[in-house]
């Protein structure tokens, strides 16, 4: 299948610290790539580089063949990369529905002067957005539909995660980046989450997903391929069963997981 994202010798230095060191990672359409590594190994930094929050010190990020280094975050979303955050970053005091509608921001066209004149097109656009948002919420969870006029901050943790995924999907991305979606969830909620990820793939079979996760069960179940990084370097790559037998991985993870 077609190559979606490819990084070449991606490197970022924070002062003397090399957080990401010559990293070559690629992912294809329809593939779930698991990104694992001990704490502080540079996983979240990698996502921040792809989404343009940090500019890399050197290296290239090719997305659908185009180098996206130096493009600001809001334009990267337009190119088709959406993400969730390690600690939810929802719009806390806005309703569930509004959160999803904001996810569609880059697909909307109405301008500020349309608001002043109460333009019909702008009103219709907002109404349509609300409809699409409802449809998206409905696909993932009935509870979120019922809570659509609740503030995001009033939701239980598991629902907030789900809402964040919905907001990212509302941008209609080609590549979805999930940063520790199962953190802080109980086993049942984790199962539910995996179910949701399969639902994403069902809905958009050609989407690429990169998932950072500490819960090995999740990685084992949903990742087609796993990349292990430590100190910003790739130390292993392959299927879950393959990487479990590599001594460096076991060493890096010693005490954290029993592969």
């Amino acid at each position: 299948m077609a190559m979606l994202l490819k990084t070449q010798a991606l490197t970022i230095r924070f002062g003397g610290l090399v957080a990401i060191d010559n990293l070559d990672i690629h992912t294809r359409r329809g593939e779930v790539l698991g990104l694992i590594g001990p704490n502080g190994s540079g996983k979240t930094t990698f996502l921040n580089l792809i989404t343009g929050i940090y500019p890399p010190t050197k290296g290239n990020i090719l997305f659908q063949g185009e180098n996206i280094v130096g493009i600001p975050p809001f334009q990267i979303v337009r190119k088709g990369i959406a993400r969730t955050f390690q600690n939810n970053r929802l719009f806390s005091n806005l309703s569930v529905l509004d959160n999803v509608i904001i996810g569609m921001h880059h697909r909307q066209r109405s301008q500020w002067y349309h608001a002043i004149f109460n333009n019909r097109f702008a009103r219709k656009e907002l109404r349509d957005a609300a409809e699409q948002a409802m449809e998206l919420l409905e696909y993932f969870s009935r509870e979120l539909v019922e809570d659509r006029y609740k503030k995001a901050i009033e939701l239980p943790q598991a629902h907030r995660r789900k809402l964040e995924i919905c907001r990212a999907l509302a941008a209609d991305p080609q590549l979805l980046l999930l940063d520790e979606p199962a953190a802080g969830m109980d086993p049942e909620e984790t199962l539910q989450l995996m179910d949701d990820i399969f639902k994403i793939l069902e809905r958009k079979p050609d989407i690429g997903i990169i998932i950072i996760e500490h819960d090995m069960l999740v990685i084992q179940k949903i990742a087609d391929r796993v990349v292990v990084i430590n100190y910003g370097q790739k130390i292993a790559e392959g299927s879950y069963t393959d990487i479990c037998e590599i001594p460096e991985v076991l060493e890096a993870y010693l005490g954290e997981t029993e592969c």
Partner: protein
Amino acid sequence: MNMQKHHQTKAMAILFLVEIFILVGIILFLKTEGITGTILFIIGIGGCWYIFDRFENLQNYLTSLFQGERRFAIILGLILLISLPFFLRSNPYLIHLCMISGIYVMLATGLNYQLGSTNIVNLATAASYGVGAYTSALLSVHLGISFWLVIFAAGAVAAFMGFLLGLPTTKTKDYYLTLVTIAFGLIVYILLNNLSWTGGPNGIGDIPPPSILGFSFRDEIVLFGLRLPFQANYYYMVLSFVLIYTLISQRFSFSRTGLTWNAIREDEIAAKCSGIHVSRYKILSFCINCFLDGVTGAVYAHYVCFISPENFQFMLSVMVVTMVILGGMDNTFGVIFGAILLTLLPEKFRIFAEFRLLFFGIIIIATLVFRPQGLFPQKLRKYT
């Protein structure tokens, strides 16, 4: 069918009573003199607010009544607002107070786009207001251009200034941005005081009053056989501006732009990662706020007919910020309430005029500690 008719009549009756109650309250409050009366009034307003805030059912009931009989409620409200000067015609000072309240409502609804919607603490309201006032005064005094054209020029110049002020937002945020706005406000104040063509500390006098078809706003107006003091002209003009500002504010808050501003307020990083061009929307909020301030400044300049830098000091910016914080972030009616209340209270407590700044300081601290969302919090958007 009959039941429906009955419900409708009941709704109208209740709305009628509520609006009359508010109008009578305003008139009595304006006419109160002395400290005891004013304090009693504050307790009364506080009580009404408490009941309204405490009982969510009452809130929902009133909102549904209003939405059901929207046209009736708005027309009745308009009639009452138009009739206000007739009750106060024996005392022009009270009409002047209403007019000044209107000016502050205009400034506060303008600032709400920044402070309430986007969480940009802009302490340069006095600057944009002053730039608008001076632009309009200079154009009409030296070039003799009509007031009705000059207000747009004032808005445009202020908006351009807002654009310049907004440029640093691409680099700075939060407190640093606030510091930039404070510095900007001071620069404008110093410039107005020291430039020769702004008249320096003497300001600009003899600004011609607006006129429509030869009728000058400085003349007394006769309506329905009753003679009203000239302040009433300005009251009606400011009332129409307030209505336009309110309408625009309502429309913005229920639009893609308003939603985007809210997203930036809630979480800038998440907003960026949702495809929002944060700097662009911040600069936009600066431009819109400053445009509205500029227009307000022009209206004010043509009311007092004499302006000097003293009218556009830092204190004014602090007052407008307090109004928005107390009234309610991004709730248009809350902001209007805050602006009216905080214009009238200092007037009623004139003998404590030196403590004005202290008073506003206490209100800001108390609101932020006990009720950070303001007296009337933002309502969630409902989509049908």
